[in-house]
């Protein structure tokens, strides 16, 4: 497939070029240019469901949050001077393939001496509006709040979610690549581990590690000639949080509520057809809400699900058969990618002692 007129620019926005933009920051300028282009295109802000920024300085997810855009596709285009043009190409691919309908490509430079002059860095709000209140490190803080609210709304208990960590540790015991291989823990060990920030206990929080992951993707035609059993990609979808915790309507709903329906619809299968799942698991609560939002478990019922379901590789619905990030470790941004690798490994039938029997159809959330 090539572009060949199948994608087009329908609106433009430009701010005057000046030596500096006193009083303005990068996100402010991005917003001004975005408003102009959206107006010019005769669409509404709510129609924009994709965003592409220069990803190195202006993180697309942060820009989307700052502008209050409800996007399901966001990516960077870090190609120096060609970032904008490349962004248009990426946007064309996105709209031609159903990842988004209207992609905003937007790039700015403030040259505001009060902000460092060159617009380097994009520090966000945390240093000004959160750090003075002593948050827990990184994402721990927000997921503690999400956990607390899930408990309040659905009666979820810490005893129930401790099964997530315990079952995955069982799975990791037989994974030679897992940081916690051969180190068993019990359900009670999880409940006895100390609080990092209530309700999150130490064994419900991921361990930062080093590592790497990779796959080779090829066409179905070439895959058919492979010596390996291929793991075919049947569908895919993307999602991003609408807003940060200060404005999103419900903090216990994850972006999987948006990405999973797209992927399932593309695949022609329903959640009921899935035989296993490899799901992003920086915290027990995050994995839990994502499993709900994917439709694998009804919303609010994840607690009883983990109480009554064996999710180890020996169980009726295996989840994170390599231990997941919670027990295999989180090698930075490769952490989520590992879920893809393990799903392919299971489908190819190459998971060794932890090989699952029903391995035709699985769902991955990275």
């Amino acid at each position, binding site marked *: 497939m090539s572009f060949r007129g199948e994608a087009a620019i329908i609106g433009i926005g430009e701010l005057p070029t000046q030596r500096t933009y006193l*009083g*303005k*920051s990068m*996100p*402010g300028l991005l*917003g*001004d240019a*975005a*408003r102009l282009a*959206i107006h010019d295109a005769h669409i509404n*802000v709510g129609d924009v469901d994709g965003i592409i920024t220069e990803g190195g300085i202006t993180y697309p997810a942060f820009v989307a*949050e*700052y*502008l*209050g*855009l*409800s996007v399901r596709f966001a990516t960077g285009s870090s190609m120096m001077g060609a970032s904008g043009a490349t962004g248009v190409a990426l946007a064309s691919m996105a709209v031609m393939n159903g990842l988004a309908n209207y992609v905003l490509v937007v790039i700015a430079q403030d040259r505001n001496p*009060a*902000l460092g002059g060159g617009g380097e*860095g994009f*520090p*966000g*709000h945390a*240093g*000004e*509006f*959160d*750090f*003075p*209140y*002593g*948050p*827990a*490190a*990184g994402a*721990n*803080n927000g997921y*503690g*709040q*999400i*956990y*607390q*609210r899930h408990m*309040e709304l659905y009666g979820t208990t810490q005893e129930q979610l401790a099964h997530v960590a315990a079952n995955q540790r069982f799975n990791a015991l037989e994974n030679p690549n897992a940081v916690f291989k051969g180190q068993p823990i019990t359900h009670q060990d999880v409940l006895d581990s*100390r*609080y*990092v*920030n*209530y*309700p*999150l206990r130490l064994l419900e929080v991921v361990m930062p590690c080093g590592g790497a992951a990779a796959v080779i993707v090829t066409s179905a035609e070439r895959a058919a000639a492979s010596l390996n059993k291929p793991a075919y990609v049947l569908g895919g979808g993307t999602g991003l949080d609408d*807003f940060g*915790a*200060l*404005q999103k309507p419900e*903090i216990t709903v994850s972006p999987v509520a948006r990405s999973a329906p797209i992927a399932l619809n593309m695949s022609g299968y329903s959640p009921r057809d899935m035989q296993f799942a490899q799901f992003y698991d920086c915290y027990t609560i995050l994995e839990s809400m994502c499993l709900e939002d994917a439709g694998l478990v009804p919303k609010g019922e994840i607690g009883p699900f983990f109480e009554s379901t064996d999710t180890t590789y020996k169980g009726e619905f295996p989840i994170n058969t390599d231990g997941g990030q919670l027990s295999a470790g989180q090698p930075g941004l490769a952490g989520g990618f590992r879920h893809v690798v393990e799903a392919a490994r299971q489908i190819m039938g190459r998971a060794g002692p932890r090989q699952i029997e029903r391995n035709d159809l699985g769902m991955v959330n990275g």
Partner: protein
Amino acid sequence: MTAEYKKAVPKPTLNPEISAPFWAGTKKHELWIQYDKRANRFFYPPAEIGPGSLTPIEDLVWTKVSGKGRIHSYTSIYQPAMPAFAEEAPYVHALIELDEGTRMVGNIVDMTDDEVRNNTLEINQRVEAVFVDITPEWTIVKWRRIDD
């Protein structure tokens, strides 16, 4: 008090000009946030663009608000990201939903150690802003429980 305060003070790095009215308000022990005239809603933290509407700055109006709201959710910090906070742990870091409709983050003051450790704070608990002068320069917003 100045020399002793070792915990994080606000660092307005994103755009100090834009957030200045917020901090000028806290200094007077008043809560001022921006009202988006086109979207008819309050929002926080301060921005140059109305989130969700892209309303330009001319139509974002600084407004004094009630300073009352309720607990949307919270987490109790046993292991703070910054060591300077460790002596106070555990303490509560909460999401507050203002009566005017947007959310803020902050600590809950006047809670005993037992109250924090036993997780007695309830979702939807009514709270109001209290203003804490942490240095001669900076006043931050915390929250205390109220009856209604």
